[in-house]
């Protein structure tokens, strides 16, 4: 079999890249190893109801009339009518450093500005200047890593405020321990603080179904349960791929969205370079509760980013998880959602892949660890949001091993390797990298990654 354009991975970056290509040439094929699309942001069914695997909130909110906003540009590039999508904006979120300070923010940037001027009055003018810099900076240039933390420490001169601003931005978009690249900081600051957060109407499945339908309407094709085992190439020219069942599919150009090392593992030449640094793992728990106990918990907060240490540690913990900081998300707390019989609380904490991996051989020990961690997570966040443990009707926990198993991400690291390949070029004439290891992270980020790598390297070959 031959196809002009082949894409490995049906996650959000692969889907976006595929739509972009199929718009101009329908001879596109996506190969996805799993039985459904979405990758890290997918869904599953338990007890006849749908659970989302990875959706807290989508960043980069923009109203339809704001034509130049990244979200609307993305939709135009994919030829999706933004007006056809119903989005629910967040209520308000919070950065909560227990016993220290709290900062609220929403899709109205003035709230954060107001919070900072009342709680960090000595830093207000520096903060306003920082925001100007962020608005003017071009974060898409490919410059070497520059520490956002050092920059912020220098400009704001307040370690607590630096940690508090970095906390949500790192949790939602840093592959680097305790820091982020300045360009990535600018991207995430705009995405979360200046633009804001929302969720799609319905579930992530509805959103993914629409993307997939749209792609198929352009004539694009997809094969599920099709895992690429090998990329066939002669020197720097890729000829096609071989699936785990031995089938060979030839192509003119190949886009991989499965990660840098994951891609190199399919090639038989030594990698361009080895990635360095620690990959960050996370555990994510979902707790489902009946609607009648909603009132005893926050109903006005969408996401809480918390930290209970004096200093924030965004790094791989020594043990299974680090409960001293994390994210608490209320997927029911977005504007104008219809009432449901149940609602959820989701928690995220940093985790240590190797510690979980050492339990992998012993199913009982692994499951015990999972439920212990879920219990500890509940008691930890109860101190912030109030008691709810006794009402939980269903719960589930994903570890780095779960994520590795379902998405083949090395070490289950959601944000991939720490150093990114911004231009998507990995040393081959017709093979490019998009998605997590290209460097744009999150749902909108990975979709923009797919689109921009296609624009830069593949459209001109059609």
């Amino acid at each position, binding site marked *: 079999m031959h196809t002009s354009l082949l894409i490995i991975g049906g996650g959000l970056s692969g889907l976006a890249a595929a739509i972009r290509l199929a*718009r*101009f040439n329908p001879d596109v094929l996506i190969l996805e190893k799993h039985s459904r699309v979405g990758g890290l942001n997918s869904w599953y069914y338990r007890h006849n109801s749908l659970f989302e695997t990875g959706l807290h909130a989508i960043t980069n909110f923009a109203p339809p009339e704001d034509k*130049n906003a990244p979200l609307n540009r993305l939709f*135009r*590039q994919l030829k999706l009518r933004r007006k056809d999508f119903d989005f629910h904006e967040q209520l308000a979120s919070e950065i909560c450093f227990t016993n220290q300070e709290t900062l609220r923010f929403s899709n109205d940037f003035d709230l954060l500005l107001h919070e900072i001027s009342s709680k960090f009055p000595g830093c207000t003018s520096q903060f306003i200047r920082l925001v100007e810099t962020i608005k003017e900076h071009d974060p898409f240039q490919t410059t070497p890593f520059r520490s956002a933390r050092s920059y912020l420490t220098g400009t704001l001169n307040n370690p607590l405020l630096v940690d508090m601003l970095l906390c949500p931005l790192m949790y939602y978009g840093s592959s680097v321990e305790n820091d982020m690249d300045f360009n990535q900081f600018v991207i995430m600051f705009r995405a979360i603080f200046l633009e804001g957060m929302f969720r799609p109407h319905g579930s992530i499945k509805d959103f993914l179904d629409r993307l997939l339908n749209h792609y198929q309407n352009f004539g694009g094709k997809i094969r599920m349960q099709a895992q690429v085992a090998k990329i066939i190439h002669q020197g720097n020219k890729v000829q096609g791929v071989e699936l785990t069942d031995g089938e060979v599919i030839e192509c003119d150009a190949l886009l991989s969205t499965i990660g840098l090392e994951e891609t190199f593992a399919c090639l038989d030449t030594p990698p361009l370079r080895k990635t360095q640094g620690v990959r960050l793992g996370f555990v994510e728990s979902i707790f489902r509760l009946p609607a009648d106990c909603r009132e005893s918990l926050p109903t006005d907060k969408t996401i809480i980013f918390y930290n209970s240490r004096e200093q924030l540690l965004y790094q791989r913990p020594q043990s299974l998880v680090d409960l001293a900081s994390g994210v608490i998300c209320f997927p029911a707390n977005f504007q104008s959602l219809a009432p449901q019989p149940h609602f959820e609380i989701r928690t995220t904490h940093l985790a240590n892949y190797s510690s979980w991996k050492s339990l992998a051989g012993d199913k009982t020990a692994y499951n015990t660890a999972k439920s212990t961690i879920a219990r500890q997570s509940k008691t930890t966040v109860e101190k912030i949001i109030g008691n709810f443990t006794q009402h939980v009707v269903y719960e589930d926990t994903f570890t780095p091993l779960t994520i590795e198993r379902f998405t083949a991400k090395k070490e289950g690291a959601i944000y991939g390797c720490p150093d990114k390949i911004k231009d998507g070029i990995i040393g081959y004439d017709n093979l490019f990298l998009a998605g997590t290891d290209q460097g744009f992270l999150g749902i909108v980020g990975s979709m923009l990654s797919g689109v921009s790598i296609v624009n830069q390297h593949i*459209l001109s070959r*059609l």
Partner: protein
Amino acid sequence: MTRDEIKDLILEIIKDIDEDADFNTLQSDLPLRDQLDLDSMDFLDIVMELRKRHKLQIPEEDYPQLASLSSCVNYLEPLLKNI
């Protein structure tokens, strides 16, 4: 294609990219980009649509020739004369 047909083609492509594009006050000699709020990604779409519809390969160094409506028409006229 006549000059008018080429002009309509360009406007039709732009309408397809952005259904809210407003041509009422469009001046042919001024940059499309500023008047219609188009970015470089939208420009790439104009090029790609011309390729898809009329098999035109426009090299990157010629993109500046597509800046305004009248420069588009001037540039495309010889290329589309037999269509």
